[in-house]
């Protein structure tokens, strides 16, 4: 996690939240949170997994699943080119990384979304990998942890992507019937189709401080109601206030909190 290349420009950075100049290395050592204000930066899936699981314990599954273009979708840029650009940028095939791991010695099924990849929108690969993670957790009676982040359904896959909401929710019903434990960790941003499916169905819903969590886009809402949105609208804290999040958990505390819940549930 330590930045190796000492390029002067990369050494200092200003925090998106408080504007303080912060030392890059210190932010990274601080699990990508601001040492001044505690702001939680977005992190990609691999970094997240490194921070979350016992060192070396992650065993990736379904790494081979790659997206296709079921609609031959073309806007200003063909979907295939968007996919290629995202794959080149991230080195990932799509927007979720999943598998098994240990957290403080507890074996779990894990899926982590990657907002670097087309805003972690949910297409068929995301839906399938989440569903397989649910099925794996159910079959092996492992606690399932999904770290969510998403801009919503991937519209370039049309209704195939919308239906992933139903698919993942149905798989979670089966897991629930089997008595499985499912914990959601909602990170910035968890919205739209993902918010309205597996991100809302955890037995426990944890959220990172300040994460945006909501269904409709704030601009759409502002246009509909024709007034300013309330302060702190659609944040993790707002969602907790309104009863949709159990605990706001700082990144530094996440491993401990997860282990604690797993122990309470006897898994």
């Amino acid at each position, binding site marked *: 996690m330590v930045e190796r290349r000492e390029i002067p420009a990369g050494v200092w950075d200003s925090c998106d939240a408080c504007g303080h100049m912060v030392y890059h290395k210190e932010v990274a050592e601080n699990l990508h949170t601001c040492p001044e204000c505690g702001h939680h930066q977005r992190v990609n899936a691999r970094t997240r997994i490194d921070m979350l699981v016992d060192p070396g314990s992650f065993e990736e599954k379904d790494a081979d699943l790659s*997206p296709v273009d079921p609609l031959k979708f073309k806007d200003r840029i063909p979907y295939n080119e968007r996919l290629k650009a995202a794959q080149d940028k991230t080195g990932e095939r799509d927007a979720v990384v999943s598998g098994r791991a240990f957290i403080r010695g507890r074996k779990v099924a894990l899926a982590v979304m990657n907002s670097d990849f087309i805003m972690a929108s949910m297409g068929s690969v995301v839906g399938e990998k989440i569903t397989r993670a649910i099925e794996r957790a159910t079959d092996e009676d492992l606690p399932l942890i999904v770290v969510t982040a998403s801009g919503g359904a991937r519209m370039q896959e049309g209704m195939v992507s*919308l*239906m992933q909401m139903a698919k993942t929710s149905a798989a979670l019903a089966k897991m629930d019937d089997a008595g499985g434990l499912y914990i959601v960790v909602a990170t910035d941003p968890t919205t739209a189709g993902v918010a309205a499916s597996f991100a809302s169905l955890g037995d426990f819903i944890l959220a990172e401080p300040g994460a945006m969590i909501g269904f409709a886009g704030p601009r759409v809402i502002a246009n509909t109601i024709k007034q300013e949105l309330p302060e702190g609208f659609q944040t993790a804290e707002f969602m907790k206030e309104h009863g949709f999040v159990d605990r706001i958990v700082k990144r530094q505390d996440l491993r401990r909190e997860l282990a604690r819940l797993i122990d309470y549930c006897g898994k």
Partner: protein
Amino acid sequence: MVMQTVNSPDRGLTTAPIQYLEFEQPLSRIENDIALLKVEKEETGRDLTAEIAQQESRYQARLKRLYQHLTPWETVLVARHPQRPLITDHINHLVSDFCELSGDRTFGDDRAMVTGFGRIGGHKIMIVGHNKGKDTPGRVACNFGCAHPEGYRKALLKMKLAEKFKLPIVCMIDTQGAFPGVGSEERGISHAIAVNMMEMSRLRTPIVCVVIGEGGSGGALGIGVGDRVAVMEHGFYSVISAEGCAAILWKTHEQKSRAAEALKFTAKHLKKLDLIDDIIAEPVGGAHRDPVQASANLEKYLINTLRELKRPRIETVLRRRYERFRNIASFFDAPSDVAQKPKPRNPKRTPATTRIANGGGGRNVKDPATPSKDAAS
């Protein structure tokens, strides 16, 4: 595909003044010509019967042609037509002894969602569906068919009643989407939709879902998980509105018709992609030109489908319902050596397992040349 038509005589273009859509202007002109001929006939006493008949058959031919080749954007306009029959019309036309039930027992009664018992054919059913509202005050009271969380919770509560008392459920979908507002978010619209999908997947009673007009993304899917999913011929079902898609991807609303093309959300497209089970035919010129006929087609579909779903054991119905959604996918499953290179220049994808979008029951297309990695892992 089930395409149904029931004859209904004496219901043509003359019964109610139809509001013409922009693309229907040629029809409006022919109608004017007919009206003028009729006035002339009246005033001069000349026998213009043949001319009038000729114009009327020209009108019908043109109407048929227009509606056979609606563009996706035109389909949107038809699905949103202000005179298009709503759930309340269908209930009036095809349900007897409708007994409306209100409230979510927690917050209130969302009028954007109609729920209640009714009888159709020999079946006692629970009806659940979006209501856009008829006139302006009605539309405002119904939030134009955009339901709040309490609407989805009301729907689920009534569907659970149906399960308890062993009645099948019919969902009529007709919404632009869930209501985008502060209250909607505060009361957990995401949660309400998610819970509905989860619970509907395991409700121990048959569920038939029909998009009678607009199927707007998550707001539609919140009452859209069932054993059969059908779309009326000129309805559509989309992950995002054409306008919304255009605004995001083309950065302008002007491209909405191109977005509509790209999203492939018409009944025909969805059927071809195997995402829906059936298309229910509409009268020539759309459901709004003959609402009674449209309801009759819907009724026939529902009666047949309910009969089919009542036959197997409920465990079988549930298993098929699960598989129906579980198998909707479209991806490649390729060897991992090309996947994990830090920056794949040109990742050559060897298709091993290509799952294609599927509505019916797990049709996987396998490439025999490359063995599935699944088996090994």
